[in-house]
């Protein structure tokens, strides 16, 4: 099973027997059914009445209650559409920021020689290791000191770090990918007279697509789901993002609107799911490095 999936190139591979395709499909569908059962349950719950959510733990509702979707959408003074837009904006800007700034840093770490490179690389990895919860308060104090908290546009504290490559995860990810790009390509470009910038532009950038796509996917999705930082830095209902808004449905000490919450949680999966399916297409079949050399 493992071996027959690695054949990379359709052209060199003999036609696969039809029955094995079917087998693969059946196996995949079986795994998917198990893996996705909790999500089916979630969708089922999103059309249950409040009383049924508490008392009927089955997959399907006894009374189909699609009203949760309209209730949830209009539950607050601000329409849920606003939260979707806010989340989309923050996620897209984060994506851009991470992709650009982390790519630049990763190129430096992966390809260029400069003083203290090893030290900076170690520091970069080190910033990954500290549990984030002890950084929230100092960060808040810092951003407030910088006048970024409570500004007219409240998303600055969420976005500025993303444009400064503070997500070491992505830097390290791209470094690892770039180190998989043969150095012979750099040398060839150098012989043609390219300097560090030229190599970046003509060799590394085009070949970094898998890493960039991965970064884009994760940046978008993780920001879409991020709760704590958005909770701390956003204070106006109309500025809230989807994860913050979702928690508004359930106050464990008083009131709960579990049905509408599930409905909105299901809806909030759609944009990220669509985003993922669209972007993963860009993870295309193997790069042919020899073409670039010529």
């Amino acid at each position, binding site marked *: 099973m493992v071996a027959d999936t690695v054949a990379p190139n359709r052209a060199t591979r003999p036609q696969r027997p039809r029955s094995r395709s079917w087998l693969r499909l059946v196996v995949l569908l079986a795994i998917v059914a198990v893996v996705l059962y*909790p999500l089916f349950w979630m969708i089922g719950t999103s059309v249950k009445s409040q009383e049924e959510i508490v008392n009927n733990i089955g997959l399907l509702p006894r009374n189909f209650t699609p009203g949760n979707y309209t209730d949830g959408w209009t539950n607050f003074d601000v329409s849920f559409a606003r939260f979707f837009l806010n989340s989309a904006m923050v996620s897209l800007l984060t994506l851009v920021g991470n992709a650009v700034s982390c790519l630049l840093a990763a190129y430096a770490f992966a*390809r260029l020689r400069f003083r203290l490179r090893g030290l900076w690389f170690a520091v970069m990895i080190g910033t990954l290791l500290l549990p984030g919860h002890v950084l929230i308060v100092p960060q808040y104090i810092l951003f407030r000191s910088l006048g970024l908290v409570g500004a007219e546009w409240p998303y600055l504290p969420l976005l500025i770090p993303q444009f400064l490559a503070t997500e070491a995860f992505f830097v390290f990810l791209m470094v690892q990918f770039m180190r998989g790009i043969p150095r012979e390509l750099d040398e060839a470009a150098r012989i043609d007279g390219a300097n560090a910038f030229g190599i970046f532009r003509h060799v590394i950038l085009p070949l970094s697509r898998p890493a960039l796509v991965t970064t884009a996917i994760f940046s978008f999705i993780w920001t879409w789901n991020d709760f704590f930082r958005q909770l701390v830095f956003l204070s106006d209902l109309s500025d809230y993002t989807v994860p913050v808004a979702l928690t508004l449905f*359930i106050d464990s000490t008083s009131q709960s609107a579990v049905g509408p919450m599930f409905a909105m949680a299901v809806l909030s999966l759609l944009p990220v799911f669509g985003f993922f399916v669209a972007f993963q297409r860009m993870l295309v079949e193997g790069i042919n490095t020899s073409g670039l050399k010529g």
Partner: protein
Amino acid sequence: MALTTAPDPTRRGTGSVRPDANRRGTGRIRHGEGLAGYVFLSPWLVGLMGITALPMLLSLYLSFTNYDILTPLSEVEWVGLANYERMFTSDPSWWHSVRVTLSFALIAVPLKLAAALGVALLLNRAWRGVGLFRGLFYLPSLLGGSVALAIVWVNMFNRDGAFNSFLALFGIQGKPWVNDPDWALETLMVLAIWQFGAPMVIFLAGLKQVPTELYEAAAVDGAGKFRQFVNVTLPMLSPVIFFNLVLETINGFQGFTAAFVLSNGTGGPVDSTLMYTLNLYITGFTNLEMGYASAMAWVFLIAIAIITVIFFSTGRFWVHYSDGEDR
């Protein structure tokens, strides 16, 4: 062609010997490259100096104080090593959370990586509908740590949950998994493994980067599918495997969200899911002992740093970089 055979066997085990040190080593910096390096690095450096470093240093400083969040910074008291002393000598719940975290990470991380790699290999080749399947497998990871996820998971794994109904088909009497202190951590592991989407995507991207001519060359040499996997795929994928291993290990040790969500932020039942970072969060924010929590965080950093260094130093024996350089 220089790169048809993936890892040069002579390079294995050579350790620190760098045959090409003269040409590419850090010893000599090519003219102009040092400057270019800092130009490309500048956004990161600004971010480090301006945004990352100060909070980190502040938390390091606070780990030697009795900081409680509510007291202004200028009034915190220096307590020397007391926080660290307390951690190692008189805090049984700290030791407990260390044990919980270790057993979680040791089991969940390898299984999650295996699941991710397995599914990535299944979904690597392009065929009609593969994108949809990739999306479906990624779906669980899209849920993150939302309130909805908590409710879903508890309802899958409590006494009358879906999992037990499934077991009942085979006449097996299940446990109240999430509500059983002997099984709650395992339920947490299942949740972590279930969300294997991130490493899966990274594996997929890594597989895309394997130059196709390597397979062609291997096929010409008469290598079968399995030999191609061992001789081409694994070595070429090794930087990405390495990345996933390091990051998922860090993630596994930092595993907070699943534990927080499943136990309602308590680490229960009876502390059975009290992961290190959850303990740290409760200490810092609920008990308002942020100084102590900072100390816990820095001990954590040192421990993970040691593990990471071990990974990096063993990496040179099995990670193949096409840029022909060890790190």
